[in-house]
């Protein structure tokens, strides 16, 4: 059974169904959209159950010729990491639809268009993680920009057009760098046994270290823009500020993961030597991202921008974990990707509810919400605790794994990165204090607390955050084999304890 194709087709069917629905019946449109995403989520979970944990090979593999004359295949397959990310994406999609029930109103286009875009985006989110043909990956990678562009530019707030264009240009710039590298790979593959875009085949290419370095940079810059790594991050705060909360969740929670996922899937696999060459630089950038993002987050006055900067800090952790080249770092980074999706989703969704109720995203406009809207305040607090990686929250496990994994090989980087956890306390607690604590500021007296729909939407997110905080094994068991495999392929093994032990 072609599980992955099925997963990709299901949202498309939903979007086609939406397309034939009348534009006026917005409620029906939303219900169909929710139903579609729920079906996809169910299908993904059903697929995940069938995943063989200890098998390091790609699973659910499909391969059909697409453009045979160029050796381009429609090839899909998942390893543990991709599975986890697809799972995250498909769980987030219904949450976003349900949580942002009303955010599609007031856009440039109809409500129907909004959900069609969301569903099309979901198809691509699945495809981008599942693609094993480099060309297919590239096509989806770039095609994803289109629905997001329209989601930001058409349904956002503030300077949404400018933000959307900035996002698009940044991403396109990176994408074109990657395209150049992909073409170079294709050409080289022709000289070494037949033109192909197959990831596994391309990873066997022989190339000089100079070539490898250049091609690596092409891929890496694309991913570093996506994942936003300092100093390529400035599109993210603008985009997050302007986008609707639901879009922001998909943007930061899923799309940006393509960057870190790509670093693992493509940079490490295709260019192992170049990855090692650039590791010192990347680690420094990652550490800068962690500290820089955190400090910038502290200095923000706008709630959405603040969350965006916390994400830059978190992406620094993920990148650090990836390039630490230890199984703890890798597994931590992979788990971090999953957890970050949910903790950012929680922050953005609750923040979005706060903003839509108050009509302002400036933090100082809030105040005393704890007394007026206790449930919403608690949810924001919990989301914040997840973001600062409080033990007991899922993000703690991943963050600590990244730090421990990094420390065993790069102690200095890990030590500096650890200062990020103090800054995290500041960037979460300052908005918590300003928005939730203190006396009620004028204009906030009549805000309503979360309604049932919102509670239903946020509950699974919170449940996942807390349950995985105490019991991350289901995910770690899926990720670990892939981690060990990748690290071993790169010729690394975990540093042994310096003084024996055990």
């Amino acid at each position, binding site marked *: 059974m072609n599980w992955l194709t099925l997963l990709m087709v299901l949202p498309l069917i939903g979007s086609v169904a939406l397309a034939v629905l009348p534009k006026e019946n917005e409620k029906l449109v939303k219900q169909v959209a929710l139903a579609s995403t729920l079906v996809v989520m169910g299908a993904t979970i059903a697929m995940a159950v069938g995943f063989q944990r200890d098998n390091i090979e790609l699973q659910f593999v499909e391969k059909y010729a697409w453009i045979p004359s160029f050796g381009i295949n429609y090839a899909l397959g998942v390893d543990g990491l991709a599975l986890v990310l697809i799972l995250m994406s498909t769980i987030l999609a219904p949450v976003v639809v349900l949580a942002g029930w009303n955010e599609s109103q007031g856009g440039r286009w109809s409500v129907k268009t909004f959900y069609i875009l969301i569903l099309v985006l979901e198809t691509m989110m699945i495809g981008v993680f599942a693609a094993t043909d480099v060309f297919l990956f590239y096509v989806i990678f770039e095609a994803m920009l289109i629905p997001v562009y329209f989601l930001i530019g058409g349904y956002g707030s503030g300077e949404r057009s400018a933000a959307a264009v900035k996002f698009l240009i940044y991403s396109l710039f990176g994408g074109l760098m990657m395209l150049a590298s992909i073409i170079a790979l294709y050409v080289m593959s022709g000289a070494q046994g037949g033109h192909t875009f197959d990831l596994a085949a391309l990873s066997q290419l022989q190339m000089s270290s100079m070539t490898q370095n250049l091609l690596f940079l092409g891929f890496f810059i694309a991913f570093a823009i996506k994942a936003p790594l300092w100093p390529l991050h400035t599109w993210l705060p603008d985009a997050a500020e302007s986008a609707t909360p639901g879009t922001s969740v998909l943007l930061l929670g899923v799309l940006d993961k393509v960057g870190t996922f790509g670093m693992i899937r493509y940079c490490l696999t295709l260019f192992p030597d170049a990855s090692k060459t650039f590791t010192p630089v990347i680690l420094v950038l990652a550490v800068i991202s962690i500290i820089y993002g955190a400090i910038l987050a*502290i*200095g923000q006055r706008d709630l959405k921008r603040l969350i965006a900067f916390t994400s830059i800090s978190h992406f620094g952790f993920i990148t650090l974990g990836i390039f630490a080249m*230890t199984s703890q770092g890798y597994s931590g980074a992979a788990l971090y990707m999953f957890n970050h999706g949910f903790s950012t989703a929680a922050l953005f969704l609750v923040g979005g509810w706060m903003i839509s109720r108050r009509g302002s995203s400036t933090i100082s406009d809030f105040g005393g919400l704890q007394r007026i809207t206790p449930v919403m305040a608690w949810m924001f607090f919990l989301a914040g605790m997840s973001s600062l990686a409080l*033990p007991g929250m899922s993000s703690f496990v991943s963050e*600590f794994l990244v730090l421990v994994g990094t420390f065993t090989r790069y102690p200095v980087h890990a030590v500096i990165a650890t200062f990020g956890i103090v800054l995290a306390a500041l960037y979460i607690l300052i908005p918590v204090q300003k928005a939730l604590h203190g006396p009620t500021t004028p204009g906030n007296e009549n805000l309503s607390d979360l309604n049932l729909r919102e509670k239903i939407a946020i509950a699974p997110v919170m449940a996942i955050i807390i349950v995985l905080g105490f019991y991350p094994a289901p995910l770690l068991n899926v990720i*670990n084999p892939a*981690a060990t495999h990748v690290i071993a392929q790169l010729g690394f093994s975990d540093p042994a304890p310096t*003084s*024996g*032990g055990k």
Partner: protein
Amino acid sequence: MMTSTSLVYLIALPLAGSAILLLAGRRSDKWGHLLATALSASSFFVGLYQLSLMVGRTNSDRPVTQKLFEWISVGTFKIDASLMLDQLSICFVLLITGVGTLIHIYSISYMSHDPDRRRFFAFLNLFIAAMLLLVLGDSYLNLYVGWEGVGLASYLLIGFWNQKPAYATASKKAFVMNRIGDMGLSFAIMIAFATMGTVSFSGVKEAAGHTSTAALTGIGIMLLVAATGKSAQFPLQAWLGDAMAGPTPVSALIHAATMVTAGVYLITRSNFIFDAAPTAQLLVVIVGAITLMFGALIGTAKDDIKKALAASTMSQIGYMILGAGLGPVGYAFAIMHLLTHGFFKAGMFLGAGSVMHGMNDEVNMRKYGALRKFMPITFATFGLGYLAILGVPPFAGFYSKDMIIETAFNSGGAKGIILGCVTLLGAGITAFYMTRVMILTFTGKSRWDEEAHPHESPWLMWLPMAILAIGSVTSGYLLSHGDTLVNWLSPLFVNHGERAELLSPVVVSGLALAMVAIGVAIAFVKYSRNEVAAVAPTDVSIFTTIARQDLLQDRFNEAVFMQPGQALTAVLVKTDEAVIDGAVRGVGRIALGSGSALRGIQTGFVRSYAALILIGAVALIAAIWVVTQ
């Protein structure tokens, strides 16, 4: 090691209580406090049951573990969620659940008028669960979960009345400073894993023998940083005074009896590291000694009764840290002082709460006076605690504090003499400021505000105070009689044998009592003979001014960390927009600018195009000219 299946209930019961109360919301307003108290009490009884089991076993069989599930397992980094109860943790379990339950009972009445009482109890239960996890975790990482868990509970409880901005700030300050300490713990765990490949207590203990001293010193120092954060030790002590923003029962439970002593637990638990890392151990002693004096000096100048007690707590924990830093002989005495302190300081805090309860939540001692007649029970229990903290025989403090002073003197060499003198001096200052608190609060003339109508607290409040007072009186004797506690704990520590005695116990006790007498006498002269002003006098010496400002700790932090940090943040925010994003926008502007500049060429006049063609032709020919040269 023996396994048990019932350890988890110690934590699960209060945790469940917390979860139920928080999730049920206002529906549980009526019965929430009762449920929380009952669950805390049942956890205490589980603890007692475990103690009875433990006593029934031989020394080496006493520790029990319970593996709950595999928590994190990546490569060689394998952490089980498992609990371990040994002789050390059972002391804490009983202290936490025992004092905790008493404070639950006290709070039922104390918080009865607060609309959010249910939430308060939920947090208290959450704290109990986290603190139990802290002392029951069998690895540093499990401990870390509890460690931050109590930080969270402390944050929530300090900021319980967070509608007041100052209180909200206090809670944030506590959390952030604790996080700095937590960072130390993170570092310790990372170093331990990198050098030993394990972070469980048993694993590290085993590996400590063949690990380099440098690594052990690193771990030790980082553990000390963690301890200074959580236990409000120098230099991370500044949050404790502000933490008094929380309701008084919280101050009693968290910021006096239990959470702040977690640092002592951590150092004692990590004895195998400190024993092998003398440098770290020396630092522990230094930190303890500094904080001891620091807290005591602040205590002499505070007019806020809770802040005076908080300063005293800081000072007393300094004693414990100092004791723990003295090595194998000191651990048990540190723990003993911790336990007795838990009784008398919790009792005194509850007493302070009782006074506040009767005085319209007034905390300024200068507005008290002559409360003895109106609050006899409070006076009696507070007084017993007072005698205990002074170290007057046969009260609890006498046994525990004198042991630490004695051990300090006997730790050998100049270090011993210095430490001994510091601890003695500390005892004297303690006597001074505690006497000051007693005199200002309970004796002399009344200096109340007009609307104050002091009255004794209801029985739900004084009963826990009374029980704690009994503990203050008896616990010292019970724990030290026949070296009960020392023998109980001895299997955990490496015994280095007896050291030469510098001063005999009798001499030390005599000296200590003399210092205490001097301190009491000065306080009497200063505060009992003279009138006490209801408003704090301003024409005081520079030393008093500095002490009133907590020895400038906040000013120091603000000047050295906060303001530069804020400046850095502001600069970076501007830089990000101007430089990094500016560069990006600059590229856009260059493209736009060159576009509009080149647009000028497109005049629409054929002749200007012709001129351009001519120029192009000239350029082309010039190129040919150059190339063919």
